[in-house]
């Protein structure tokens, strides 16, 4: 069972704000989904290597060279708050 406190903790880690109703609902949902997933515990995986890349392609190299992006104005337009062509963000400290 995932408690309300655990839900709040996970939400804080994930940077997702939740209201009381959502905390209640997610506590229930997460518990039942994690229960179902725990079926995997019955699989014997001793000595099995994890698969991170399924087709096995390794190290596609390319020249480490910067390319000019043609539509800088399009990127700047997307900034939630722009100042002098820069993306204005909240102070971190």
């Amino acid at each position, binding site marked *: 069972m995932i408690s309300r406190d655990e839900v709040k903790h*996970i939400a804080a880690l994930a940077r997702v*704000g939740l209201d009381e109703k959502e905390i209640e609902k997610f506590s229930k949902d997460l518990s039942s989904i994690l229960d179902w997933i725990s079926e*995997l515990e019955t*699989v014997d995986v001793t000595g099995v290597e994890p698969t991170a890349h*399924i087709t096995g392609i390794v190290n596609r190299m390319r020249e480490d060279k910067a390319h000019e992006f043609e539509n800088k104005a399009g990127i700047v337009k*997307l900034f*939630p708050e722009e100042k002098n062509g820069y993306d204005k963000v*909240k102070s971190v400290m």
Partner: protein
Amino acid sequence: MIRELHQKLINREITATELAEQYFAVIEKKDGDLNAYLTLTKELALEQAKKVDEKIARGEAIELLEGIPGGIKDLILLEGVRSTGGSKILDNYIAPYDATVVEKLREVGAVFLGKTNCDEFAMGSSGENSAYGQTKNPHDLTRVPGGTSSGSAAAMGAGMAAWTLGTDTGGSSRQPAAFCGVVGLKPTYGRISRYGVMAAASSLEQIGIITGSVEDAAIVLSAVSGRDRFDATTGDSFDKKFEDYLTGDVSGMKIGIIKEHLSGLREDVKKVMETVLEKYKKLGAEIVEIELPHNKYALPAYYIINFSEISSNLARYDGVKYGMRSDDKKETDLTDADFVEEKNLLETYLDTRQYNLGAEVKRRIMLGTYALSAGYYDAYYLRAQKVRTLIKQEFEKVLQEVDMVLTPTTPTPAFKIGENTNDPLQMYLEDIFTVTANILGVPAISVPAGTVPVDGKDLPIGFQLMGKWFDEENLLRAADAYERMLIDKK
């Protein structure tokens, strides 16, 4: 269909402009009910069509896809056009560049009708998670079109495009294609570049192709596949034209079936599947019973990997660089600045994601964050990746005996809107037959298998073929042979 339209264009029975106009007329008539398109790009389409018409007028040869109109899932970027991915958090997002697939389709002269509706950031199985309204099933407006490429499949099912692009993380192109009575192809992992596609679960997802026939899927695949320096997972490109491999010949081909898959089906669906197998036998293919004992773990393994990768990928939607930002000043009714305390960075993150992401997206971010958090990584994500290895080893062994594996695409035809919304787990179980191909990275295709009568309506269902890595040729050949047999009979 694409080849026929191409013939009409070069025979000058119709102009590309007229063809595009025809599709927009159908969209105008039908899409009020269906809600398959989020944005129409009529100006762009007519401009593209005009270029093709000028080329034909000059007597120049045109490519198969040139002048052929299609739709693009809203998860895929089309420069200068709004791309929401079905999410409120990208409500104001205008794509600053083209996805590689879009660029490739531009190069061959395809015409873009618009952007299609989808479940938010490719999470869902019904279209119910779009922030922009439910897409309806063209065969029954009270039913879901499937998801997450809901709009792409519904548009094809309703004749509102000649081809569409979707994405497929766990069945998101095949399942809606099955529900809407059209073809849905998920190519091999790495066959098509995903550059310019909003990432959800990176180790699972591919661009999907939804079309009216297997040959059309092959034609679109030839145009968009290949290695891309912007997607390190892409395999080597070659000049193969997949449509050239569709000989109709499957004699001697070995098709594997999993007994438990078929025996557990409801009667009407089972009957349709049995007819499909009979047809393959008649075509000269051999049906072989196979076993994949670890396949029953594919679904839970799939969801752990899906949640985990989603929670990581979706961290980018934070209201800092682009998209919506929940800022106190815009939200509050208070006008006196003295009463409004400026939100700090953390509060802005929390509010931006709370108010602009949908319930399913939040649920998966939460589940993934939990699965990846300290102390749980080994038990969840790492274990799932190991189970993935076991399933892969089993499948490799099976592929020594058979050329491909046949399953139903879904256990049922399209379900009612609202039927599964209260139970997220029930919704996840919808993907039971489709996730294996994503876990494995193999190509898979859903082909219309027939219909079953439900509440006085004939609802389409599909069968699925899963093939070998980077062997779309044989997969498409087998799927196409089945379709040809039906056409020849008519």
